[in-house]
């Protein structure tokens, strides 16, 4: 290895240690390093957003020739101010795994054979035509991702919804963010957080609701710890169903029984009203009260349908509703002491304290995900702690562009880049911008993700193109959906960068460009759009997902709608897409501005980013002369919802007596298809495990590292026990991370979902355990 490359790797090695130090010792400084780094001067650094979570850290990718050799945090990016976590620091190594998919493959006589990519694209276009001819337009589907770039999602939506006329477009963000969206829509009538990450430094109290930020949003968590250290009067509360690294670092850890966060949130509101901590001026001017249907089901059956029916209620009716949620009653349901409930209420209720709530998968992957989002908003609305610096109900995203691509571009069955397919006005706008006949856009949504895979299993869908995601690991009740893909007469196209259990079921595999091998844009959790250039040449025949779709669209006869050249298409697509959001509530920055900066927040109005929405001091879309304007709803108000506690779809019983909870670990990104190919991350966390409570393990005679069989009504899996590891579940619960394809925990999970958002609940089902 040459000396230059060696010194680059040493810089990467040092960067990694510095990052680790930064997350353990907030505020740590290494003056010596800065000197060395400045002196090195041998690497060319290029800005990009990290692709390994929704935090959206800005990174600088260090290039030696045309090889990416190092990563450091971008000091100009306000998200991370030069910090990175262990995944970000090692991210470039994911580009160079030995088994990278470099050539297109087609299944012939049961075997995958390499073919030129143009031939594979021909086959895909021909198969789509044939399927539509035989089975109708709704027999073809696209399943994408919150890791799609914005242009990827945009062209997918344009091709399927605008040109082919089917609403069969979904993305894996349905599995992670759908409840956040319906939470925003039902409470505020407009999607995405009102606040920004600066809330972290402004807040006096931060409460994490079922959100292990120390592992899942590590850079934001470092900012929280740094703020606590600097200000000395900051309190961090971890409210969760198991003890994690977040609980250990918090000032107080409060555990609740699965699904009972609904009851606790209501009890907090009960206490706020009982103690008259209500901000009456705010509530009277800016909120209205509502209720919806109850006993709303769980969606475990095919063709499940649900439509909520909102009704206005008075404050008095809301207050009466809350009488079922006194702290004492809720203690019995939730296992949280009345004292702790009152303590949390007192933090929210104290007018002198600024409070930010954070959540992510715990509240979203929840059979009442929409409701629990509503209920946490209720707390902030009753106290008026919203849309001001430090006062923020903050729904975090998991994926780098779940917001940018799926939520903003609208790559879900019912959505369009602006608005929904059901509204003629929105269809008209799309038809005009896309240059397609209005009649092309179907006013009826088709299938949400779980139902889309059910339709594939039933045979209603015959062709599915899967990009940048790995559903053969992530679908709940996995066996049914894998069997569905393998049925006779199904045709599956998978675009990916490495072989996965999803490429295993493919009929065609397309070699995709990864991250900075293409130009693209992501959108993070705080409404920040982040552009990146093509920095690294991709290997072999790899092609961006956007360009793959364009190539197929042209083969299907839509040259007019996809006219761009290969050297300009990202900029052109961005400027076309931007027309959908040309209003002060959602204006996006021009391409030129995005290229220059480390991310720009929308609404971007008159050259200025909007930090806090709905607050007229910061948000130019607010009506003149108002302090706050919740302009998403027709009544100009934020909605407070009476939503009851209802239990999970499946709870432990005599036969299946444990809760199963699933999730992630800091070292690995989602299904591990990229991070498990980064040696240092793989070595740090080589295989999955089942976390057990030490007392449960002792009762079963299971020692740390011994094998345990986890059995549900759907399937079973055997893996090693982790006792008193980095996370400890309470008695009666086990936790399994899903990053390891050798242990497919979703064989065991249940495909129940929130009837409003249709997002599955990966945090709660019933299992029994056997010592293996």
């Amino acid at each position, binding site marked *: 290895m040459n000396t230059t490359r060696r010194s680059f790797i*040493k810089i*990467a*090695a040092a960067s*990694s*240690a510095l990052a680790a130090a930064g997350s353990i010792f907030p505020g*740590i400084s290494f003056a010596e390093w800065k000197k*060395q780094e400045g002196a090195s001067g041998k690497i060319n650094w290029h800005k990009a957003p990290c692709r390994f979570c929704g935090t959206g850290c800005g990174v600088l990718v260090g290039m030696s020739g045309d090889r990416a050799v190092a990563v450091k945090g971008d000091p100009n990016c306000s998200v991370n101010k030069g910090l990175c976590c262990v995944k970000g*620091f090692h991210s470039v190594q994911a580009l160079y795994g030995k088994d990278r998919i470099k050539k297109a493959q087609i299944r012939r006589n049961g075997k995958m054979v390499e073919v030129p990519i143009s031939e594979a694209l021909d086959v895909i276009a021909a198969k789509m035509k044939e399927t539509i001819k035989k089975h109708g337009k709704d027999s073809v589907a696209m399943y994408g991702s919150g890791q799609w770039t914005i242009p990827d999602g945009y062209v997918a939506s344009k091709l399927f919804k605008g040109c082919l006329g089917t609403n069969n477009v979904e993305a894996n963000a349905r599995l992670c963010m759908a409840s956040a969206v319906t939470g925003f829509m039902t409470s505020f009538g407009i999607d995405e957080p009102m606040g920004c990450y600066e809330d972290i430094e402004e807040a006096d109290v931060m409460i994490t609701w079922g959100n292990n930020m120390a592992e899942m949003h590590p850079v934001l968590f470092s900012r929280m710890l740094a703020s606590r250290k600097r200000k000395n009067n900051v309190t961090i509360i971890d409210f969760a169903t198991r003890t994690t690294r977040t609980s250990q670092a918090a000032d107080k850890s409060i555990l609740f029984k699965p699904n009972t966060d609904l009851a606790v949130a209501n009890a907090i509101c009960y206490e706020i009203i009982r103690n008259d901590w209500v901000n009456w001026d705010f509530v009277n001017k800016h909120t209205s009260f509502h209720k919806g249907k109850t006993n709303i089901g769980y969606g475990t059956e095919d063709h499940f349908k649900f439509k909520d029916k909102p009704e206005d209620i008075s404050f008095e009716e809301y207050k009466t509703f809350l009488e079922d949620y006194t702290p004492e009653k809720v203690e019995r349901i939730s296992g949280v002491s009345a004292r702790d409930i009152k303590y949390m209420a007192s933090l929210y209720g104290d007018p002198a304290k600024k409070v930010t709530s954070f959540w992510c998968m715990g509240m979203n992957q929840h059979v009442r995900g929409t409701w629990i989002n509503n209920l946490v908003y209720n707390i902030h609305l009753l106290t008026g702690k919203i849309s001001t610096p430090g006062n923020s109900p903050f729904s975090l995203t998991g994926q780098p562009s779940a917001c940018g691509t799926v939520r903003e571009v609208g790559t879900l069955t019912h959505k369009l880049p602006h608005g929904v397919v059901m509204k003629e006005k929105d269809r008209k706008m799309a038809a005009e911008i896309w240059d397609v006949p209005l009649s092309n856009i179907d006013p009826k949504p088709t299938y949400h993700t779980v139902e889309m895979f059910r339709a594939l299993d039933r045979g209603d869908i015959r062709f599915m193109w899967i990009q940048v995601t790995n559903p053969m690991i992530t679908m709940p009740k996995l066996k049914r959906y894998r069997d569905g893909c393998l049925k006779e007469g199904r045709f599956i196209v998978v675009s990916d960068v490495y072989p996965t259990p999803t490429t295993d079921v493919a009929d065609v595999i397309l070699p995709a460009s990864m991250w900075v091998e293409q130009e693209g844009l992501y959108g993070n959790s705080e409404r920040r759009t982040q552009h990146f250039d093509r920095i690294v040449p991709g290997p072999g025949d790899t092609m961006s997902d956007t360009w793959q779709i364009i190539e197929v669209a042209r083969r299907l006869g839509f040259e007019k709608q996809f006219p761009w050249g290969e050297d300009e298409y990202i900029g052109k697509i961005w400027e076309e897409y931007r027309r959908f959001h040309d209003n002060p509530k959602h204006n996006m920055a021009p391409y030129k501005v995005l290229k220059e900066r480390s991310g720009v927040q929308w609404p971007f109005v008159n050259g200025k980013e909007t930090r806090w929405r709905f607050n007229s001091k910061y948000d130019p879309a607010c009506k003149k002369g108002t302090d706050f304007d919740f302009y998403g709803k027709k009544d100009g108000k934020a909605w407070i919802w009476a939503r009851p506690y209802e239990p999970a779809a499946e709870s432990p019983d005599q036969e299946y007596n444990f809760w199963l909870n699933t999730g992630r670990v800091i070292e690995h990104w989602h299904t591990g298809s990229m991070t498990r190919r980064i040696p240092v991350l793989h070595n740090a966390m080589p295989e999955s495990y089942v976390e057990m409570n030490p007392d449960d393990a002792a009762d079963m005679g299971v020692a740390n590292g011994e094998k345990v069989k986890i059995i549900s009504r759907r399937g079973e899996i055997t893996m090693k026990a982790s006792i008193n590891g980095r996370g400890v579940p309470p008695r009666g619960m086990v936790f399994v991370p899903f990053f390891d394809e050798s242990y497919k925990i979703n064989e065991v999970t249940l495909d129940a979902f929130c009837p409003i958002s249709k997002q599955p609940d990966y945090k709660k089902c019933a299992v029994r355990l056997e010592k293996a």
Partner: protein
Amino acid sequence: MPILSYLVLPEAGAKEQLCTDLSTMEGCEIIPSDNEEVVVLVTDTPDEKTEETLQKSLKNLPSLQSLSMTFGHSAE
């Protein structure tokens, strides 16, 4: 040709000693923190065997309390 990095914590009050000890060892480069009792260590050795020997000597340093690896690269 392994390159590794570590976070090294010194024994109480022994950060300076630790820095001296590490700087004199073949294949070791250090970046001490200027406000915490932590030292970043990057090791660069010609082969696995030398790496193992170095790791053993590191573990025997009296000024060193703990060593945690943050990066590992074994060059082709």
